[in-house]
């Protein structure tokens, strides 16, 4: 039991932080958001640091790092409020492609590691809420390959991606119709992509597929999809910790400098207790972010329970910290000009990424065991 980072992990953290400090001031983020949220160029810069290939095996041009390194990077990107589809492109998509045929991996992973290709998961559908097994998009064998028909929603950086990993229902016979995973390339026949900005200064897209040709990744993909989403949960939890860490620091600074009634507002006990409660939520979140990343290697049932628990904690913490830090800033906290409001909006979007608090509370609740605790 050890929660220290290695020297290499600290160096990685420093490297990302240096890039953030130098290349990603708030003005740049603000500019990107105002211009519609296109972030592909930012993602390319992260690739220059090697970060796009962080989780991709060395044999395919990546760094082959594990969950703790991913957590460190995500925390720092969160701290800088870097809007790039990092968790989706560099963590979730490689996790999904790990089960793809060798040739598919060889064709995509090296390009992904260099950010020449951005591949994202397109799994959300209308009416599915956050349930991964609810898949209405259909796959059909045609000739040597497959075609997909259906629609996917809120696909991250959807109109900037080069390919999508699409879960679809494969009708093998009357009783067996597994969730299969396919890779669909941008520009494929029958694929329509409608992009739009999101609340957190990035972009997403609606996809419609009409007999769109697709490459099979795996026939029985439900377990893999769950695992990849858990990787995504750990990633956004770590990002959220970075976002909150910075937001709390900004709030503390504001409380110590803003004067009312002739004294810094940090002297008022109502506000002091509020910031103590904020600190509590931040540290509970950090603790559960560690837990999320360190539990990714567990067997599926334990892993899913742990990641759901983490997302419940993070969801509660993000909402409390976000709302209270805006409140503690007073009027300036609700302006577009002030960075704090953007941190708040990012936290809000993270809650709704890969399942919100109530969804995951339901997961924890349905799978309660008799025992509880970190090692249960």
């Amino acid at each position, binding site marked *: 039991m050890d929660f220290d980072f290695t020297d290499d992990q600290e160096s990685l953290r420093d490297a990302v932080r240096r890039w953030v400090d130098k290349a990603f001031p708030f003005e740049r983020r603000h500019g990107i958001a105002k211009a519609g949220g296109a972030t592909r160029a930012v993602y390319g810069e992260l690739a220059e640091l090697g970060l796009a290939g962080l989780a991709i095996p060395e044999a395919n041009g990546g760094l082959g790092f594990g969950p703790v390194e991913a957590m460190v990077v995500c925390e720092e990107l969160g701290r800088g409020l870097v809007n790039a589809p990092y968790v989706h492109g560099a963590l979730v998509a490689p996790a999904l492609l790990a089960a793809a045929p060798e040739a598919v991996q060889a064709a995509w992973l090296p390009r992904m590691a260099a950010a020449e290709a951005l591949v994202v998961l397109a799994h959300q559908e209308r009416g599915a809420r956050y349930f991964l097994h609810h898949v209405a998009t259909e796959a059909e064998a045609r000739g040597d390959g497959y075609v997909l028909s259906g629609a996917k929603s809120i696909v991250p950086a959807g109109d900037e991606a080069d390919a999508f990993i699409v879960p679809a229902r494969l009708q093998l016979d009357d009783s067996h119709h597994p969730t299969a995973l396919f890779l669909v390339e941008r520009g494929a026949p029958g694929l329509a992509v409608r992009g739009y900005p999101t609340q957190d200064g990035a972009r997403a897209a609606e996809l419609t597929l009409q007999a769109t040709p697709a490459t099979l990744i795996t026939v029985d993909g439900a377990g893999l999809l769950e695992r990849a989403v858990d990787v995504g949960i750990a990633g956004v939890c770590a990002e959220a910790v970075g976002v909150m860490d910075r937001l709390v620091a900004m709030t503390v600074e504001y409380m110590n400098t803003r004067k009312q009634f002739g004294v810094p507002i940090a002297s008022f006990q109502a506000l002091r207790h509020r910031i103590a409660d904020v600190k509590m939520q931040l540290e509970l979140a950090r603790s559960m972010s*560690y837990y999320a990343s360190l539990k990714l290697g567990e067997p599926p049932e334990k892993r899913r329970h742990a990641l759901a628990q983490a997302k419940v904690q993070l969801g509660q913490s993000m909402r409390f910290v976000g709302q209270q830090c805006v409140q503690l800033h007073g009027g300036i906290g609700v302006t577009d000009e002030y960075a704090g409001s953007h941190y708040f909006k990012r936290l809000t979007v993270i809650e709704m990424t890969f399942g919100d608090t109530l969804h995951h509370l339901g997961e924890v609740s349905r799978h309660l065991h008799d025992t509880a605790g970190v090692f249960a």
Partner: protein
Amino acid sequence: MDLQFTPEEQAFRAEIRQWVAENLPRDISHKVHNALRLTRDDLQRWAKILGKKGWLGWGWPKQFGGPGWNAVQKHLFEEECALAGAPRVPPFGPIMVAPVIMAFGSPEQQKRFLPGIASGEVWWSQGYSEPGSGSDLASLKCRAERRGDKYIVNGQKTWTTLGQYGEWIFCLVRTGTEGKPQTGISFLLIDMKSPGVAVKPIRLLDGEPEVNEVFFDNVEVPAENLVGEENKGWTYAKYLLAHERTNIADVNRAKRELERLKRIAKAEGVYEDARFRDQIALLEVDIVALEMMVLRVLSAEKSGKQSLDIAGLLKIRGSEIQQRYTELMMLAAGPFAVPFVSEAMEAGWQGDYVGAAHCAPLASTYFNYRKTTIYGGSNEVQRNIVAQTVLGS
């Protein structure tokens, strides 16, 4: 980063688990697992069993006869004891006064007092709070006047937990009135059999005489019972408060009680009710998050590589969780939490229970646990301390 305990730590845990299983009396663990009334004898029997093994002072270094365990080993010991249903060792001797005597007491005091604490023979009590001095402890008025080789103590302490059993009491007393209130306080060890000491129980809202008022009327205390220097007692008291912070979160007991909550919820038919069950799930997440926070503190203590500013959060969160599980257990019992049959909280009671036997103590425990956010520095005072750390002002 690694969530797993090392093989050595796991072997240590297994050793503790086996020893506790073989040595914890079943009648005592039965009471703990069912929240039945514990007697002085129950508590002292367990303390002496630990003492005989050399583990009553489980946090003590080897030079004072302790096992010399590190922070993680201490935690594992506490966890195994809690999960097995061991009663919480009254902390006043081994956890509170002993470290102060070790750090600031004279060699004579160490020789005189530590063996009785380590063996569980001598019952210690705490004399800190006074009727007029709660959160503002430094305003305390209980006076100790030096006369020759004696102190004459006059005044009153209150909220002295289990003081009715106490043989010795460590007190903060006023020896000076100059300067800041903190500077005139001394740390005095007082034999409770001394003439002029009177103990009067206070019945709490659950009907139990758990705490006491302690009166001092011209009590003569040998000057050799002063710990450290006169007027430096506040420093020692702060040392004591800082000493055991992961212990006070008591996450191990929370895990055991969550299991009990699930058993009660199943028996009372609310475990399958999604609205109730979600509340259990939320509490379970709270407990895992608290445990992770405790483990982070332990890891930092063990390696010495990180300085964490989160230990102050543990008391706040731990006490909130303790209140929450007692609340949910009571709500699980529903209307059967309402009867107040005091005898039904005795082990082996043969009378007619109203509803299931497990319902009998639930409301009383809920009422009793309101203390947890008040004692040991109220949670509001704790928030002041956290805010001071966060804001740096």
